[in-house]
């Protein structure tokens, strides 16, 4: 008998059935679709790059990320421009609580405090 090389098995001996193939296709479809279809909603804001002038968005993102120093600095900037220096100082103080080593915040706070107190 001439040897026939079929690594792993001989296909000639069994009766075929299509059910494994059908189930395989169905299962792969489930894996592909289900997580996408059942994904929970996520907030829409880009909290990493909020426009500095969008006070509402900055405040919304600060609710999600209360320790985000950059959001606080940007919010303080906006508040300062809007003439709300008191709130701006308070926001910067919160930022400094989170990141006491940030020299830039410290300088801004000093400048704002000096402005508030009339440059004394």
């Amino acid at each position, binding site marked *: 008998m001439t*040897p026939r090389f079929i690594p792993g098995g001989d296909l000639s001996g069994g009766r075929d*059935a*299509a059910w494994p193939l059908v189930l395989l296709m169905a299962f792969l479809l*489930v894996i592909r679709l289900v997580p996408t279809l059942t994904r929970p909603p996520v907030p829409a804001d*880009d909290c*990493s*790059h909020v426009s500095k002038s969008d006070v509402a968005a900055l405040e919304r993102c600060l609710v999600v*990320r209360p320790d985000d*120093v950059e959001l606080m600095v940007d919010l303080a900037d906006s508040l300062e421009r809007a003439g709300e220096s008191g709130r701006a100082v308070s926001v910067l103080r919160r930022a400094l609580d989170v990141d006491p080593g940030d020299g*830039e915040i410290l300088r801004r706070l000093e400048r704002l405090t000096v402005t508030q107190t009339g440059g004394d």
Partner: protein
Amino acid sequence: MTRLRLPLLLIARVLNALFFLTTAVYAILTYSPFAYEQFIQPNMIAWLSNFVFLHADFFWLSLCLTLLTLAPHLKSSRVRVLAWTYLIAAAITGVVVTAVPVMPSGNSPVRSVAVALAALIPIAWLGAIDHLSADSPRRRVPDFGRGALGAALAAALVVWAAFAIESPMRLRAAGGVDATVATQLVGAGASFAAHLTAFTIAFLALASSRAARVAPAFMVSIAAGAVLHEVVLAPISVTGIVSWVLSLAIAAAFVTLISGLARQLAPVESRRGPIVALALVPVAAFGVVPALTAFDWGFMLQKLAALGAACVAYAATQALWRARRNETLQGAATMAVPLVVAVMLVHITVAMIVPRLAMWFGDARLRADFALDAYSAADPSYRVLRQFLETDRAEPDDAAFYAYLRANSSLKETVRPVSVDFVRETRPLPARPPDIFLFIIDSLRRDYLSAYNSRVTFTPRLGEFARDSDVFTRVFSRYGGTGLAVPSIWAGALVVHKQYVTPFAPMNALAKLLDADDYRRVVTRDHITEELFGLDDGTSVLDYRVPEMQHTFCGTMSELKDELRAHGSDPRPIFAHTRPLDLHIGNTRFAAVPPGESYPGFFEPYAARVHAIDTCFGEFLDELKRVGRYESSIIVVMSDHGDSLGEGLRWGHGYAIVPEVLRIPLLIRVPTALRAQFAADVTRLAFATDVTPSLYALTGRTPTRPRAAAGVSLYASADADIPSRRHDAFLVASSYGAVYGILAHNGRRLYIADGIEGRDSMYDLSPAGADERIGMTDAERRANRARIREQIADLSAWYGISQSGRP
């Protein structure tokens, strides 16, 4: 025909396969430019270099062993022709490899691939011989009758349980993983569903082979090839069609070998064999995987061990639970279909529940990506299944984005160098410039220095130095890994993702400065300085005869002190530069702590070496003071990248970019006479690429940034404003793979996109070092990806690399 005893055949085949596999692996490593530069060139894997040296000897040894196994077939056997042909071809090859070194070196990709593929032929050839010469009748394997799916699910449970039971112990031992009991339960639950799903799919795929008229072995080869492509070759930057060809060839060769051996072993089949094999699964989970952790490459070896255990479990349970031979697939369907549907329901339920847990319980740590990332760090079996099964793509362009990252990483095409110039004309200074000592201590973490961490008590001399220096507190490397980090420091700019663009001289802004001021260079010789920095005749070379992995700070300082003494009368300023490897994970993972020393709370072998560096650094400063050079010197102590020391069960740096790998220390001592002229904001975000422009500034130039990808001086005139970096976004990348990130918000926000595993993450980096994983919105993800694309495109445009044809 005289049959060899089976154990002897097994041993001979395994040793032969090991020899040829090692040959193929070496060839593949030389194909990947980064792997060649970082593993082969510095002899990081010493035994592999020795293997190449003795390659011809090993070849003959392997052939002798194979000859013993083929001898019974040479006279009269149905495989006589195959056996003779093999021996003749092997003998001719042996003569060739003895006479001519055939093993490839770097920069010969065609040869590398050819050698790798050629090395796989003998493995497959002998597999075919074993298959055809087996006395046992060809079985209809595998059998998919009643009970076969049950056996597959039993295997899933065994593998899941072994790794799930082991993972809490590993998580407890790991640092930097916020894994509560709840997150572990979430992980274990997701892992349970993933195992059931994967084993069911494996079963269905194999069972489908009959309907599809495809040999099961063919399907196994395709699956194994896909695994090798994703798990092994992608992490070493072998991608595209070459990766597929190599992966499928390796898989086909080994499936043929194992298939042949299985037929040879068929007569000795017993129930004891599969039971022993099943017992190997916990051995893999509790013994092999933990042992691999400390020197793994991005979890690659742990994943392979887990996959091996899964394959063994699958085969063993099939053997134990084999159905009656005369059953047909139709008969089996009545039992299998409800089981498959049940597994599907488990999968759907878990997919729906897990992403909502954080919302339901109000606990951010239960977020699916946090909990599953943390858990999968300790469960490689789940980690690898997740890589293939998790299709929860957040963005429609996920696949295209990751393909874009891969297409722009580890470039193999020729790239022309660009000129990096921080000043229009580098004129010599009227006064003698200061000496410059640039010490880049490979893998040094800032939290092992007292200047950054008050708990450190073992670096008194570096602490003393820090008090006399500027200690920059938010410094990052632009590249995780030496390969591109060091050239980028010299260039003072991002470099294109290729190892390497040569000649490097036009990009070497640091060398241009040294040339202009006629510095006397004293530089450690390693594979990167030799290839890129240029060690010409005028350079005093340090560590000349020391193997690169044995470059120690103390050894180099001893040579440098000798240099200072020997050339004290030379009027030229000195530029001394070294990159000691004391702290490289290859040297610390199994290092002993000297007797009498103890570093509680730290990775002790690493801390002990930092302590030794500290002592030698102090002695070097003493010598500088003694020879009167200290006051007038610029001394820079930094690292090229950090290192993982067990955080999230990660070790070393590999291709990952994670906070502890990107953060680096940077201490710069400005000569006393210059201090009044300059100001620096040490709390501003800084990069290793800022060091060279800073040296330009400190030597009296006014560097201007030649391109957005270039660094800026950390020093400005004392009366000038230091511009903020708070609103800029900076590209960071792995040196060795398609992993990129964006660092923003003055170094507080890190977005990472892993193009190898196909997932992304975001961190809030506290300057104090407490890094917190945070979630991100789709808008943030899109914005960060756009920034990565923009900056890669800008870098490509600078180097004149066409983006056409890339995804």
